């Protein structure tokens, strides 16, 4: 406290001339960016909440206020419930699988081998580091189209099925995106594939800040790879994992582009691969029920907020200080 006060004392006070119009000065600088923020971010949010309580079709200038009818529609429509269920699956499976794979790859790249100079990455880790990042460079749309052809039937040039048939596993060569049992899981796999690269890089960066002498100490104590990972690496990168976890949960809630491109606007065969993002798009731009679509959007907002709060809470853990 005293230290702070002392520091403050050293700051030279501006003279009266500079004081004059200080608030005006701040206001002038803030009006423009805040105005843009209000116009393009806050105002659409507020309008969406208002629209979600109307019967607006998106084509008229005269929406009618209908209270919470759109929200009760969401929970009575079997298709949006399918979408909700799938969002829940995405929320649980995608972050978990991505974090596990990301941690595994990152630790292999950074601390996977006991080389001559102590702990280092596996052979060729410099190459892997670049390769893992490829999906991140491709846009989601390209990934979607790419995998649509990977999972296509052999007759339509599908790579996966051709490969399966090539090694004699004909019985596994099912029409992946045409079968309601698999279509959605194909999307899940693709999402994980496209997310992992980024988290490998993120976790790698965190792992590189861990001092090597800690590993050497663990090594001397006879700790094996798993124990080292569990009791040294993981606690020291937990902060990063936590951030990645929340961010990914929010990312996974979306999934719009993947599902829309790979499975189409109906949500795939038997409509079993639907997600809220696609349901919202379909309700707005196919059914022209902007009121209902906005209600789905608001629901998605609420769910995302709850999810991020819960995830932050769950992941809270004592921080390990490195100094």
């Amino acid at each position: 406290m005293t230290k702070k006060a002392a520091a403050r004392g050293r700051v030279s006070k501006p003279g009266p001339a500079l004081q004059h119009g200080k608030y005006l000065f701040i206001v002038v600088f803030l009006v423009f960016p805040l105005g843009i923020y209000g116009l393009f971010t806050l105002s659409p949010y507020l309008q969406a909440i208002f629209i979600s309580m109307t019967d607006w079709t998106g084509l008229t200038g005269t929406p009618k206020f209908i209270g919470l009818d759109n929200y009760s529609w969401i929970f009575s429509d079997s298709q949006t419930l399918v979408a909700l269920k799938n969002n829940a699956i995405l929320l649980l499976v995608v972050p978990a699988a991505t974090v596990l794979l990301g941690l595994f790859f990152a630790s292999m790249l950074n601390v996977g081998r006991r080389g001559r100079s102590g702990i280092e990455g596996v052979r060729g880790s410099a190459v892997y580091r670049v390769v893992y990042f490829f999906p991140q460079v491709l846009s989601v749309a390209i990934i979607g189209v790419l995998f649509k052809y990977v999972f296509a039937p052999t007759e339509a040039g599908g790579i996966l099925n051709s490969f399966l048939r090539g090694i004699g596993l004909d019985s596994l060569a099912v029409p992946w995106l045409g079968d309601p049992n698999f279509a959605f899981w194909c999307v899940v796999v693709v999402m994980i594939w496209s997310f992992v690269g980024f988290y490998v890089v993120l976790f790698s960066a965190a792992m590189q800040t861990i001092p090597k002498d800690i590993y050497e100490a663990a090594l001397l104590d006879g700790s094996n790879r798993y124990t080292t990972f569990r009791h040294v690496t993981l606690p020291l990168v937990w902060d990063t994992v936590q951030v990645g976890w929340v961010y990914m949960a929010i990312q996974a809630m979306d999934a719009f582009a993947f599902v829309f491109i790979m499975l189409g606007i109906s949500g795939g065969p038997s409509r079993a691969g639907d997600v809220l993002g696609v349901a919202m798009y379909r309700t707005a731009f196919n059914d022209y029920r902007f009121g209902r679509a906005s209600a789905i959007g608001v629901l998605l907002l609420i769910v995302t907020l709850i999810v991020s709060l819960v995830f932050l809470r769950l992941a809270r853990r004592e921080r390990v200080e490195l100094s």
Partner: protein
Amino acid sequence: MSSFSADWSRRKFLRGALATGALALPGTGALAGCATSGGGQESTRGEKSDKNPLGVPTDGSLEIYIFNGGFGDEYATAVHEPMFKKAYPNVEIKHKAEVDIKGALQSRFVAGNPPDFVNDSGDGQIPLGQLVTDKQLFDLTELFDAPAWDTPGKKVRDTLVPGAVEQGTFGPKPYVMNMALTVYGTWYNKVLFDQKGWQPPTTWDEMKALCAEIKGAGIAPWTYQGIHARYMVWPLLTMAAKLAGPEILVDIDNLKEGAWKHDAIKESATALAGLKSSGWILDGTEGMDHIQSQGQWVAGKAAFIPCGSWLENEEKDVTPKSGFEFAMMPDPLLSKDSKMPLETVYAAAGEPYVVPAKAKNPAGGLEYMRIMLSKEGAKGFTEKVSSLTVVQGAADGVKLPAGLTSAKKALDAAGDNVVSWMWQSWYGTMWNPGINAVIGDLLAGRKTVDEFCDGCEAEAKKVRDDDSITKYTREK
């Protein structure tokens, strides 16, 4: 004064920022307006005369939006717009070619300043039924009652094929002008069939016998548009209507309870589902899209595919240079004692054009339609885009590609035995994703025929029970 000199602390800064935000916000509201707020524009009309029966203002402008998709927009710039310009030299034509109609025009409909003429088509189509419900479309009765452009003594409506006006009618009034006439049927490669000595089957029993033979020859007998399985609704309903008469289609259009459980529908669905259970559908079809499956068919991997007469044009780039000739046959009869003859085809007027209700120059939009529906305009359309039109006899003497010739022959042979239905355009969501998913399950063997009928009934019920959807009915 000295207490005011407080440093630029973070808290104060934030407080100030909040205040600024609060100040700025009301302003943004006024700036942005609301997404839902409408406005308007005045519409003008000119003097009516014999040469100008619709009262087109002879100066001013005409704003035209053409969907730039499979048909392109050359038919407008090279045929119809010059015709309009010749008749009204002082009107400025503002031509716009657009891939995404919805993206370009939705907000203009809301704001009340739409263009004068819109080709509402393609992936970005704004559903016509919804536009009608929201009172956004101009009543076309005047157009159809106006004298035809180049057929003296006849009204426009009398120069069109039967059903053309009705298919743009919602409730009592026509709101949509459909220009293209599409004939639907089952397609095959005539060269291949001639080579192998295969005859297009006329009954379903013949179809089954031929399928076994085709399979024996190492070709998959059938394929369909996979995830867009709804294309198979066309043969399904057409075969059912041939068996039991066109009344069953009226019941379906009117959302009558049990309409999808008619015995004829069941029989037709059983026949089509049998293709899968007999192993006659190209492997992997259910996982393909229309591009992939039609590509397979063109490549000779499958013998039959259901489609409309645009197929030939759509596959232009991938059709083999030799050894391929598009041919269409009417769907086979399910039983020898059917209500309608084999020649019956499903033909529907498509490619919709509308005049917005709040257009600045609605008479100009109507006049432009009258020009399109003239003999000269329709002939130019057929020549430019390789499609038949709703104008009677306009394609006579025009040299058509093989597939279209065969479609025209099928249509001519059908005479008055042309069936069509309205629910597809009246209730767009029932068509897709609704019944698309149900028939997809049937054809992939995931649903039985009874489950299929129940599923269709459920989709019809959804529309019936949704008060926010405007319902239409037809008598015959």
